[in-house]
């Protein structure tokens, strides 16, 4: 996504899509009568098939980043459903398509239910798991010979409408399916699901903690991908006419899909379309010159070189240098056409497209690093310069009165194997408190934060928020109950602007809303943490202090009751610490209860209304700062051993 790109749905984009679709439909309906060669229709039909496949793959693997090597599952099941039912059992073609869709959707849900329940699932393992599925299915088809008769199945063409020939028909069908897939891909990208999937792509744990129901959105994405892939596979059976295990379950299908998506770009709905057009065009030209044996070599080289040099894909590069690409296309295409010494129209067009792609990729990379960061200079030394709020009120304003118990830990323990990270913690957190959580390294502070935010489940004991036991809830449910946290090492969503980082948290917070509604609110939260001037910047251009402020803005964006700050001041210089302290105080005054893990006792003495000291997993002291700090046990355990603090 380019900076400044408006991510909300634009009527203009929809209109352009609709016009292109109508144009292509008209081409299919009337083109042959006007002398449009029918082999172009075949080629366009092939392009449409791959657009549909790659777009369906992109829903999960592109948007959410779960790379699948298993697209052949859907192509195979879809094609087999149609081929076997219509070819061997006489079912009408149009009845088989929805059946294929349902079947593939169910298989996708099955894969998702297994894969996404794996606790320690990593992207690589998911990729290999999806690789195994087509193997299993093709083995199944081979064993049960009565599925396809053991030889493959011929797909009978359906009854055609009177004035269409078969080429036109298969092209129009493929076009409709491709339009459906691209449409879904477009709508998903511009919906709540799109924001959720991007958040999952960037950092799944953070997304979950901010309230995104990650499992649900991954299931939606994989199921939608399965349904679309199945429909396209079903139409593919008709296109190829004869279906065998090798032709639809083979590795070439995921290979093509991956190369197209990597080439086109995976974060945007248009990427797979671009990739499919280019790759199919190139393949077609290579085979027209009898270079079929070079096909795979080109594909492999494109994949290897692009992943290493331009992992963001063609789409982003084209947006960076649209004119250079256009000029390259016009020049190459024009020179070839005028000189007319080599090839025919299609060669010239494909050559022009390749030139445009090359120009965009090479030139776009030079522009890419200089992302337009917000113009204001860094303001960490004098943070007040950019601070829109009168910060001096902080010291004079009364802290909110302490109210009822919000969070209640009852005999909470967490063991990692034999290590007792926390033992028997009983702790009440009251509304309006600002609790400093201190203790030597390894005393269990971060473990307690992880338990409260739901990242871990306690071994024993219960944690109540407003009387509700949260120990069995998923982290996103805990977020909706009113718990938010920051991370010691900031984990921003790297592909979103600072504003959208916060807006995503608002969208999936306690009161769900759309991205458009969330953005203005996000600016308010950014102002609270003095980051308003960096709303359009990307996290990569922020320094540590600014990232930690962003963490806080994102955490309060979900409108929490309790905010857990995990070492939010670590690694800051004194001026930055002062600024961060002001921000924490401002958040506290807005009515949010805060638990802050911190080593700087000087800071906690100023800030905290109460201090809890942990040592070796138990509560050593708990009370107001002055009393706790003079407790001999605390001095011995904490200050004594770490006198340099």
């Amino acid at each position, binding site marked *: 996504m380019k900076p400044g790109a408006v991510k909300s749905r634009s009527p203009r984009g929809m209109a352009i899509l609709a016009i292109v679709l109508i144009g292509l439909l008209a081409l299919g309906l009337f083109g042959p009568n006007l002398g449009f060669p029918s082999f172009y229709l075949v080629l366009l039909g092939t392009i449409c098939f791959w657009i549909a496949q790659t777009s369906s793959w992109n829903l999960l693997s592109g948007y959410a980043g779960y790379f699948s090597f298993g697209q052949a599952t859907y192509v195979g099941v879809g094609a087999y459903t149609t081929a076997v039912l219509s070819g061997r059992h006489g079912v009408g073609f149009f009845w088989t398509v929805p059946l294929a869709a349902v079947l593939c959707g169910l298989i996708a849900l099955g894969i998702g239910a297994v894969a996404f329940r794996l*606790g320690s699932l990593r992207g690589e393992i998911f990729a290999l798991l999806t*690789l195994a599925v087509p193997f299993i299915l093709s*083995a199944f088809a081979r064993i049960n010979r009565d599925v396809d008769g053991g030889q493959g199945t011929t797909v009978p063409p359906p009854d055609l409408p009177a004035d269409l020939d078969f080429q036109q028909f298969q092209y129009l069908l493929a076009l409709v399916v491709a339009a459906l897939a691209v449409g879904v891909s477009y709508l998903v990208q511009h919906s709540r699901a799109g924001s959720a999937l991007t958040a999952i792509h960037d950092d799944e744990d953070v997304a979950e903690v901010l309230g995104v129901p990650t499992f649900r959105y991954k299931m939606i994405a994989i199921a939608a991908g399965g349904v679309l892939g199945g429909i396209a596979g079903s139409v593919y059976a008709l296109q190829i006419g004869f279906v065998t295990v090798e032709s639809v379950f083979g590795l070439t299908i995921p290979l093509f899909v991956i190369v197209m998506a990597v080439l086109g770009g995976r974060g945007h709905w248009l990427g797979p379309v671009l990739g499919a057009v280019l790759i199919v065009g190139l393949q077609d030209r290579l085979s027209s010159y009898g270079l079929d*044996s070079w096909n*795979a070599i080109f594909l492999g080289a494109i*994949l290897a070189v692009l*992943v290493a040099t331009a992992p963001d894909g063609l789409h982003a590069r084209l947006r960076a240098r649209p004119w250079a690409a256009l000029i390259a296309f016009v020049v190459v295409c024009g020179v070839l056409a005028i000189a007319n010494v080599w090839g025919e129209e299609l060669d010239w067009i494909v050559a022009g497209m390749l030139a445009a792609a090359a120009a965009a990729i090479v030139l776009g990379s030079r522009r890419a690093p200089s992302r337009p960061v917000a113009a204001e200079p860094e303001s960490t030394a004098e943070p007040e310069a950019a601070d829109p709020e009168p910060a001096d009120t902080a010291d004079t304003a009364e802290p909110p009165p302490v109210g009822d118990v919000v969070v209640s830990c009852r005999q909470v323990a967490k063991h990692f194997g034999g290590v007792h990270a926390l033992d028997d913690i009983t702790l009440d957190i009251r509304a309006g408190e600002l609790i400093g959580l201190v203790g030597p390294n390894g005393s269990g502070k971060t473990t307690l934060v992880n338990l409260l935010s739901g990242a871990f489940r306690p071994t024993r004991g219960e944690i109540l928020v407003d009387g509700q036991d949260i120990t069995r809830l998923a982290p996103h449910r805990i977020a909706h109950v009113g718990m938010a946290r920051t991370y010691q090492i900031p984990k921003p969503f790297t592909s979103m602007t600072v504003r959208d980082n916060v807006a995503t948290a608002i969208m999936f917070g306690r009161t769900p809303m759309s991205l458009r509604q969330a953005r203005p609110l996000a600016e308010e939260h950014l102002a609270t943490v003095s980051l308003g001037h960096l709303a359009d910047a990307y996290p990569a251009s922020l320094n540590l202090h600014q990232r930690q402020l962003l963490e806080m803005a994102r955490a309060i964006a979900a409108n929490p009751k309790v905010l857990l700050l995990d070492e939010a001041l670590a690694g800051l210089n004194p001026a930055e610490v002062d600024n961060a302290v002001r921000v924490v105080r401002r958040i506290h005054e807005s009515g949010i209860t805060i638990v802050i893990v911190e080593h700087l006792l000087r800071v906690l003495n100023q800030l905290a209304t109460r201090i809890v000291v942990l040592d070796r997993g138990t509560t050593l002291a708990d009370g107001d700062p002055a009393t706790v700090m003079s407790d001999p046990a605390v001095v011995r355990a904490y200050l004594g051993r770490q006198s340099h603090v």
Partner: protein
Amino acid sequence: MNVVQATLSGALIGGLYALMAIGLSVTWGVLRVINLAHFGLILIGAYLTFQLTTSWGVDPLLTLAVTVPVMFVAGAVLQWLFDRLALSEFNSLLVSFGLLIITIQVASNVWSADFQRMDAAVNPYATESISIGRLVFPVTTLLAFVLAGLVVLGAHLVLRRTFTGRALRAIAQDSAMAGAFGVDHRRLSLLLGGMMGTTAALAGTVFALSNALTPETAYEWFGVVFAVVILGGIGEVLGTFAAGILVGVISGVVSVLWSPATAPFVLFSAIILALLLRPRGLFSTGAVR
């Protein structure tokens, strides 16, 4: 009796799976590179053995004198490339997938896509077998098993007992920190890449002894070999060997009891179960790798 024979034959074939998997597993575990091109090295190794034997009548095992150094260099070059590109773990999977596709297509252009097998006249190993009582073991699978055992033992000893091995394990745990303590990451990773290339040469030669070759076989190895890598635990040398045997036995027994075609079905179902229950590998002690 059939089942006993199938179990033992399966275990021996499992040696070949382990031999194929070990390079993948170690580079993944130690160097954080998922090197699919390793399959390409095995394939080219097998074809080189086939070509040398067929053209000049060399004994197939003697071709190792050529394939081992060639694959050592190829493995090291690949590793150098991955190092230079500084790829993430996942991107290494994609880049090496691209390289594998190229390798397979090149093999197909050079040696054709048809099945090719070494002539029985030049390949005395293919037809010989050793029988113990009523059990019969083909020499080729015995050879694969012994070689795999030696490689695994060697790799295990190198990784556990030698200074180089300790340095490699340090890289596996934290390569930046290992570097700070003076471990030369680049040189060692080249060495390791070369060594894993060597295992590919061995696997390729052994495969060529008993099987007909076609470039597409490289894809067929995917499933079984990754099953072995994941079941054995990524980077675990002994685990890989054990998992290879286990996978071989499962395939062998299922083939006899039901039909050969059901073997992959059972196998992959077993892998999914294993992933659900023991995601770090069957033999892991639960320690973080």
